């Protein structure tokens, strides 16, 4: 472990942690507004799972960095350009179908990602992956079920799911982007080679879409990119403003 580039490992952790944090925050916006009580609770449960996952991994990012930043410092005292979450998860909730579609695309991804990350040589990451996988397995099951029922539901629910795919698909390519940080850690047996995850993700998405009577968009559509460099869509700033306002106004507040 001594030979591992600490900055690379920290950045890798920030990607995992920030993505879960922002998605958890997005999902929590539904709390009390779900279309039906049971779905409201289901989404709140998923949001809490994601928040818990982000806490573990942001805490670890702070430890790896070694500058005394804890989970709160990382969550509440970084700006947009320092956030490394995937663009997909900062997209607005839209209607319920769009929220479910976003969750489905991401849950399929993390299911396969964490299945691989379980074998990481970094003990914290592998333990994190193993613990999170149980939660993700349920998220995937629930969202797949909803995608199928809404896609193969009424004319309106089907159309809403088609709209959701059109809205979100352009943000899926980023999940499988490679860069120097990833390459270095893959070599060290720490990070997951996302190129290997892609066919698994694609197969699962196709399988569920088929049952949901939804079409997978053609290959080679334009894919958005940027979060690896801290370049985000216009939505992230609003999320951070809401999430960070209290600890920034009262930095010593305890709760």
């Amino acid at each position, binding site marked *: 472990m001594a030979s591992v580039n600490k900055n690379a490992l920290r950045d890798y952790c920030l990607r995992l942690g920030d993505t879960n944090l922002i998605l958890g925050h997005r999902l929590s916006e539904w709390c009390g507004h779900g279309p*039906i009580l*049971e779905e409201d*609770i289901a989404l709140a449960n998923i949001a809490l799972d994601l928040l818990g996952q982000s806490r573990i991994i942001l805490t670890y990012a702070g430890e790896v960095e070694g500058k005394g930043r804890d989970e709160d410092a990382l969550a509440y005292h970084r700006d947009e350009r320092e956030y490394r979450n995937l663009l997909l998860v900062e997209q607005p909730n839209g209607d319920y179908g769009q929220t479910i579609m976003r969750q489905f695309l991401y849950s399929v991804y993390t299911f396969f990602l964490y299945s691989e990350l379980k074998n990481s040589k970094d003990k914290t990451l592998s333990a994190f992956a193993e613990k999170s996988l149980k939660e993700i397995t349920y998220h995937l099951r*629930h969202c797949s079920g909803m995608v199928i*029922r809404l896609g193969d539901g009424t004319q309106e629910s089907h159309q809403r799911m088609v709209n959701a795919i059109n809205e979100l698909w352009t943000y899926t390519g980023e999940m499988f982007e490679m860069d120097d940080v990833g390459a270095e850690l893959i070599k060290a047996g720490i990070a997951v080679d996302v190129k290997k995850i892609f066919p698994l993700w694609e197969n699962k998405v196709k399988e569920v879409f088929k049952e949901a009577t939804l079409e997978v968009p053609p290959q080679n559509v334009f894919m958005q990119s940027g979060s690896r460099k801290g370049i985000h869509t216009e939505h992230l700033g609003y999320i951070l403003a809401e999430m960070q306002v209290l600890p920034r106004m009262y930095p010593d507040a305890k709760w």
Partner: protein
Amino acid sequence: MSDKNTQWPLWEVFTQKKAGEPFEHAGSVHAPDKEMALQNARDVYSRRNEATCIWVVPSEQITSSTPEDVGAFFDPANDKIYRHPNFYKTPGVKF
């Protein structure tokens, strides 16, 4: 229930705390079908480790006695003292 009821069908949820223990009625959930009923029951009634196994049953499949049945159904047991074993324990019976 009016015709304008847009809720999904109702399901009764039973949870088992530990293997071998009896299932207890936990409450009810709405769901479009049995798989989603199971998931909703999990989300609503096993958030705090209350269950290791869950049953869901369509509420309309449950036949219940009515308050009018109480006299004929249950009162006659009151004076049958010989049916109340109090010198050994009967599983699932609380005195």
